[in-house]
């Protein structure tokens, strides 16, 4: 045990570090504990009026039923109001046999003609069945705000609105059907696609044969052995002939070759198929490669 001054300092430093770590993790732990574990079985939102006049006050009631016995439900987030003003609210708790009911009654007044909207009320809680955090939400609510001297007038207005809505729905269906028919007719009249075949590349001018010996030699070995190693050697010789550096790939060789020698490009492409193609394609590709290579070399024989 080190009772020297330096030992005490080290001890104090460690204690400070532990305290700092605890303080750093405390908010995260607190956040995780913020969500209550609740079995929520009902979360309703309704109004005591369907249609109101501007300025008329009415009640919007949020009802929550939970299975737990609780005194408070501070986690309930009340709906946001649109085209209505909040005049006050009252929360009531009713203990029942299978848990607790909470009623939040908002007294509100509609503002202008149109619709007074209420966003869903919600509670974020941990579902005990799954142990996961979850948002439980009510449905949104809308109350019509109409200009009628009586609510009966407003109700007749509601009927008209319903009829208007029905007419709009029928109209929309008709438009969709018309569009679908128009689309089908257009499809039937669509001209068939013409496949454009690119013009064949002109044959390269006949030149005096360059040095082809490495190519002939690689081809001879490949013809004799027909294995992957000899094919790799042949590919490398072809790539080098295209102007690529050692270790190049097919794409490098094509880039180095450019438009100079399309036949060499074709031979290289067939070599790729013979090397990397599926089993059933490799043998035919190998035969094609030999044929193409022979033709390629013959075309480049020195003229006698």
């Amino acid at each position: 045990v080190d009772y020297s001054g330096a030992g005490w300092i080290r001890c104090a430093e460690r204690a400070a570090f532990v305290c700092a770590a605890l303080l750093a993790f405390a908010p995260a732990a607190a956040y995780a504990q913020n969500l209550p574990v609740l079995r929520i079985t009902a979360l309703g939102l309704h109004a005591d009026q369907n249609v109101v006049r501007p300025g008329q006050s009415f009640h919007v009631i949020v009802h929550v039923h939970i299975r737990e016995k609780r005194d408070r439900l501070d986690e309930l987030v009340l709906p946001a109001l649109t085209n209505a003003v909040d005049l006050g609210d009252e929360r009531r708790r009713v203990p029942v046999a299978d848990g607790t009911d909470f009623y939040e009654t908002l007294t509100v007044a509609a503002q202008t003609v149109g619709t007074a909207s209420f966003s869903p009320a919600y509670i974020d809680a941990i579902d005990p069945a799954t142990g996961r955090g979850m948002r439980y939400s009510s449905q949104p609510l809308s109350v019509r705000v109409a200009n009628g001297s009586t609510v009966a007038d407003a109700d007749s207005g509601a009927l008209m609105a319903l009829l208007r809505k029905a007419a709009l729905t029928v109209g929309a269906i008709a438009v969709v059907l018309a569009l679908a028919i128009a689309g089908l007719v257009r499809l039937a009249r669509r001209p068939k696609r013409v496949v454009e075949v690119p013009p064949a590349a002109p044959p390269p001018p006949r030149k005096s044969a360059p040095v082809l010996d490495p190519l002939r030699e690689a081809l001879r070995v490949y013809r004799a052995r027909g294995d992957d190693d000899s094919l790799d050697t042949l590919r490398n010789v072809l790539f080098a002939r295209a102007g690529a550096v050692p270790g190049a790939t097919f794409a490098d060789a094509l880039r180095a070759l450019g438009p100079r020698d399309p036949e060499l490009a074709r031979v290289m492409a067939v070599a790729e198929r013979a090397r990397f193609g599926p089993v059933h394609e490799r043998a035919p590709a190998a035969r094609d490669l030999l044929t193409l290579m022979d033709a390629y070399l013959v075309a480049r024989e020195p003229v006698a």
Partner: protein
Amino acid sequence: VSTPHEVRDALARTIVGQREVVDALVMGLLADGHVLLEGMPGVAKTLACRALAGAVGGIFKRVQFTPDLLPSDIIGTRVFDQRSGEFVTVRGPLFANIVLADEINRAPAKVQSALLEGMQERRATIGPDTLPLPRPFAVLATMNPFDADGTYALPLAQLDRFLLNVRVGYPSREDERAIVDRFSAAAAEPERDVATLADVERWQVDVRAVHLNDRVRDYAVDLVRATRGARYVASGASPRAALALAILARARAYLDGRSFAVPDDVRELAPGVLRHRVAFDYRLAIDGGDGDTVLAEIVASVPAP
């Protein structure tokens, strides 16, 4: 019956230039994976995603990631139905064929992990219900790597779930002129329903049947292994990167009309597959280097078959 080329061409007609981005999006779809697009604002990242979704039909949802987003805003929630007196599950925007997660790094880790869990598991749990996500399903996420204020960096483990990370650069002068000509008069309107969802599912099956030669497979594995312990690399790519390289090489071959993958497929795709899976150490920043250059050196150090 449509082909992936038709989708690619439709995208190319909507997006001026950015051929690599278009190809990457189509390959990601063919490989049944998710794609992360990184680039400055205004380089058509979102438009490219919208164009892809429009071209293949299906349900498209866009979520703008913000710091106040909650997991339930993505996955869904339980809403009380007053008529039946029961909670019903309301599915969130994750239940779509193509989900655009715009500025994914602007939402906190809880939201990111909820999304990434859905991407990996292809299902989401809302309360007591575990629901499968629609097929095909792809998340296309965008990220602005330069404006780091108020962002939450995605951990490597979560980035690993993206098959491909595409850097979207500025267009060339020619392309920028074409963009001004085309879109200053009318808004960009992506082509719709070039292919169907059934077509996409068929392509995805076909891609899995593309031949991957042993040497090409080994090349993909060697490339991934070369990232581990390389200079400037703090942690290398996981085996999931080799898997991603293999499936994307198949997709590239399929898009190119080949029945087999070649080493070029692997080599061309390697930067996009490795970029977000490799963590670079502090010495890279001190020496003034950048990750893509290091990756290019690693790729060049592995001989292609």
